[in-house]
C-alpha cells in the first residue's frame, strides 16, 4: 500500500513528507555500508521503487586496476566486470567527469554522443539502460548509475531527473567517504602492525607527557605490559628514559644511539629520540626507539676476551719455545762441566755455546719489549732519502754484506714529510737486513722511492692488504725494497708480519712485526710482493698529507 502511494506521489509531486520517508529509508540502508554489495543492492532496489523503473544498476570504478569493477544490479546477481580498462583520456570518461552530465538515450538520437552511449552500455553490459548518470566525488569518477525505462512507459520528468541527480551526488559522497575510511583503516592497521612487530621498542608521548605508544618489543625489554603504561605519565615507565624523551619533547634535543644503562633491569639500551609533528608542523609529541644492546655488548666483550686468550696462548707457546731452546744447551753444558772440564775442546764449546745462548735470551727479551712498547711516533719533518742513505751506509759498514749490489732509484720530487726519525730508521734497517739475509749467496738489492695515488676503495691484488683495514688517505710516499733472494711462499706471506712467526732457522722474526707496527702508527701500511726463488719487494707506504 505504502509503496504504491509513494510511487504516485513522486511521479506527480515532490512531497516533503515523502521525501523525508525516502531519506529515512536511505539512512537505514546506509547502516549496512560496510558490506558494499549488499548496500548497493538495497539502494538499487530502493531506486527501482522510487522511480518505477525496470532495473537499476551501479557499476563502480576499480581505481587500482584502472578499469570498471564491481557491478551491482537490482535484477541480477552481483558480478564483476573484468578486463575492461578505462583510459582516463577516454572521451566518455572525460565527458562523464562532470556530474551535471547525464547520458540520456532519448536525447541523443544520432551523432557522436549516441556512439559514446552505445559504447558505455556495451562496456558496462547494461543493455536495458535508458539513462547513465556519472557518480562523481572529489572531482573524479567513481562509478556509473544506470536506469532502465519506466515500467509504465512514461518519460523521465524534470523532477525525476533533479531528484535522481541529488540522490546520485549524495550516494557518490557516501561511497567515497566509505572508501577513504577503509583506506585509512587499512593504513592504520598496517602501521600498527609495523610498530607492534618491530624488533626495537617504541615509546611515544604526547604534549601532556602521557604515553601513547608502547609496542611489544618495549614490553619485552622493559618488562611492562602496554595496558599498564599507555595513558600514564612517562615517569612511571622508567626514570632515565623519561628524562631523555622529555628533553626531546621540550627542548628538541634528539639523541642518536645513545647508550644508557638502566637499573634495576640492569640492561644496556641504545636509544634514539625525535620530536613528532602534526600536519601544521607544530610539535605534538615525542617518540623514542630503543634496542637492548646487552647481548651485543656481551658478545663483543666475549669475542674480545676470546681473541685475547688466543693471543696469550700463541704468545706463551712462542715465548716458551724460544726460551727453552736457549736454556737447553746452557743446562746441558753446565751439567756436563764437572766431568769434562779437563777437555779443552769441551771448554771452548762451553764458552761459545753458553754465552751465545745467554745473549740470545737477552736479545729476545729486548725485541719483545721493543715490539710491545712501540710508542706513538714523535713526528718531525724530514727527508726520507736521507734516512735511507744513513741506514744503508751503516749496514754496509757494520755488516759488510758480500756479493750484494745496491741500487738506488730516488724520485727527487718527494717533499719532506713528518715522521719519527728513529722509528723509521729501525723499519728501514729491518727491511734491508731481511733482504740481505734472503740472499746468502749474493744478489741485487734495490731501493726506489715514488709518489703514488691510491683510491681507498680500490682493492689491490694483495693478500696482505685485503685483510687489513686501510686508512682513507689517497696520496702516499712509497719506498720499495727489492731483493733477488729466496722469496716468500704464498702460504707464509700472510703470516710474515706476525710477531713470533719464523722462516729463519729457529729465531722468530720480530723485525717485520716491529716494522709493520711502526708504519701503522704512522697511518701507513706495508705491502709485499714475492716470487719463490726470484725475490721479494717490500713497499712502505707513508701518507702524504
Amino acid at each position: 500500500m505504502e509503496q504504491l502511494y509513494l510511487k504516485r506521489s513522486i511521479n506527480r509531486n515532490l512531497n516533503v513528507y515523502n521525501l523525508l520517508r525516502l531519506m529515512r529509508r536511505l539512512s537505514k540502508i546506509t547502516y549496512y555500508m560496510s558490506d558494499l554489495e549488499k548496500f548497493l543492492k538495497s539502494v538499487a532496489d530502493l531506486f527501482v521503487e522510487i522511480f518505477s523503473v525496470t532495473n537499476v544498476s551501479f557499476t563502480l570504478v576499480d581505481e587500482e586496476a584502472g578499469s570498471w569493477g564491481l557491478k551491482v544490479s537490482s535484477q541480477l546477481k552481483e558480478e564483476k566486470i573484468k578486463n575492461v580498462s578505462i583510459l582516463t583520456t577516454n572521451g566518455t570518461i572525460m565527458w562523464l567527469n562532470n556530474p551535471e552530465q547525464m547520458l540520456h538515450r532519448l536525447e541523443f538520437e544520432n551523432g557522436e554522443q549516441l556512439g559514446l552511449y552505445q559504447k558505455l552500455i556495451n562496456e558496462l553490459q547494461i543493455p536495458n539502460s535508458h539513462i547513465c548518470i556519472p557518480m562523481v566525488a572529489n572531482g573524479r569518477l567513481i562509478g556509473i548509475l544506470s536506469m532502465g525505462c519506466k515500467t509504465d512507459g512514461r518519460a523521465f520528468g524534470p523532477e525525476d531527473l533533479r531528484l535522481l541527480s541529488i540522490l546520485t551526488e549524495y550516494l557518490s559522497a557516501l561511497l567515497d567517504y566509505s572508501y577513504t575510511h577503509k583506506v585509512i583503516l587499512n593504513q592504520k592497521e598496517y602501521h600498527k602492525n609495523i610498530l607492534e612487530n618491530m624488533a626495537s621498542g617504541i615509546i611515544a608521548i604526547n604534549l601532556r607527557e602521557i604515553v601513547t605508544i608502547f609496542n611489544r618489543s618495549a614490553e619485552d625489554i622493559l618488562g611492562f605490559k602496554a595496558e599498564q603504561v599507555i595513558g600514564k605519565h612517562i615517569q612511571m615507565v622508567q626514570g632515565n628514559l623519561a628524562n631523555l624523551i622529555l628533553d626531546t619533547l621540550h627542548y628538541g634535543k634528539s639523541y642518536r644511539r645513545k647508550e644508557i644503562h638502566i637499573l634495576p633491569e640492569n640492561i644496556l639500551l641504545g636509544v634514539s629520540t625525535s620530536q613528532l609533528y602534526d600536519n601544521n608542523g607544530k610539535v605534538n609529541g615525542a617518540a623514542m626507539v630503543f634496542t637492548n644492546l646487552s647481548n651485543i655488548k656481551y658478545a663483543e666483550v666475549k669475542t674480545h676476551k676470546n681473541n685475547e686468550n688466543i693471543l696469550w696462548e700463541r704468545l706463551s707457546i712462542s715465548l716458551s719455545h724460544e726460551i727453552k731452546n736457549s736454556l737447553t744447551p746452557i743446562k746441558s753444558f753446565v751439567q756436563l762441566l764437572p766431568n769434562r772440564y779437563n777437555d779443552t775442546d769441551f771448554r771452548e764449546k762451553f764458552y761459545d755455546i753458553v754465552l751465545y745462548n745467554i745473549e740470545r735470551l737477552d736479545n729476545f727479551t729486548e725485541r719483545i719489549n721493543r715490539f710491545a712498547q712501540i710508542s706513538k711516533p714523535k713526528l718531525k719533518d724530514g727527508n726520507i732519502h736521507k734516512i735511507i742513505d744513513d741506514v744503508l751506509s751503516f749496514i754496509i759498514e757494520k755488516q759488510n754484506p758480500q756479493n750484494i749490489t745496491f741500487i738506488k732509484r730516488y724520485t727527487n720530487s718527494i717533499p719532506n714529510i713528518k715522521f719519527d726519525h728513529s722509528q723509521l730508521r729501525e723499519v728501514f734497517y729491518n727491511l734491508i737486513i731481511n733482504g740481505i739475509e734472503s740472499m746468502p749467496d749474493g744478489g741485487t738489492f734495490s731501493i726506489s722511492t715514488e709518489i703514488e695515488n691510491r683510491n681507498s676503495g680500490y682493492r689491490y691484488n694483495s693478500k696482505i692488504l685485503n685483510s687489513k683495514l686501510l686508512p682513507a688517505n689517497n696520496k702516499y710516499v712509497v719506498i720499495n725494497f727489492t731483493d733477488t733472494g729466496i722469496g716468500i711462499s704464498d702460504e707464509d706471506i700472510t703470516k710474515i708480519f706476525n710477531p713470533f712467526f719464523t722462516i729463519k732457522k729457529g729465531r722468530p722474526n720480530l723485525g717485520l712485526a716491529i716494522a709493520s707496527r711502526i708504519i701503522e702508527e704512522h697511518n701507513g701500511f706495508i705491502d709485499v710482493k714475492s716470487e719463490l726463488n726470484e725475490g721479494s719487494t717490500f713497499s712502505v707506504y707513508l701518507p702524504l698529507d
Partner: protein
Amino acid sequence: MLKANLMKEAHFQFICRWIKRYKIKRIIIVMRKKILIVDDEPGCREALKIILKNKYNIVVTDNGIDAIELIKQGGFHLIILDIIMPKINGIEVLKRIREFDTQLKVIILTAIKNKEFVEEAEKLGVSGYIFKPFDVTKVTTIVDKVLI
C-alpha cells in the same frame, strides 16, 4: 770376567763374560748403536752429541728432509727427533718414517708439552719423550733404556 776397554772411536765394544757354570768364555760382541739427532738448534745438537758420543755413534742433522734421506740409507737404531723445526716439523718427519719403517725407535725431543703433538706421536708410535731443557742423566737413562 774380562772387562773390555771402552774404545772411544772404535765401532765395537768387547765385553767378555765368563759364566762360571759353563766354564765357557763367552765373547759377546756388541755393535755400537747408531743414533741420529735431528734438531734445528745447534746448541742442542752439540749438547746431545757430547752427552751421547761416548757410548753411541752419533750423526746430527738440522732439518727433517736430510734426516729422512739419512734414515733411508739405513743403519740407525734410534732417532732423536725435535718437533718444532722450520719447513717440516717433527711429526711430519715421523709420519714419513713410519711409512717405510714401523719398527724404528724414535724419541721425541721438544720444548712444548702440547697435547695434540703427544696424541699424534702416540698414534705413530714413539719410544719416549725428552723435554727441553733436559737433564743430562735423564737423557742417558732413557736412551740406554730404549736401546737395550
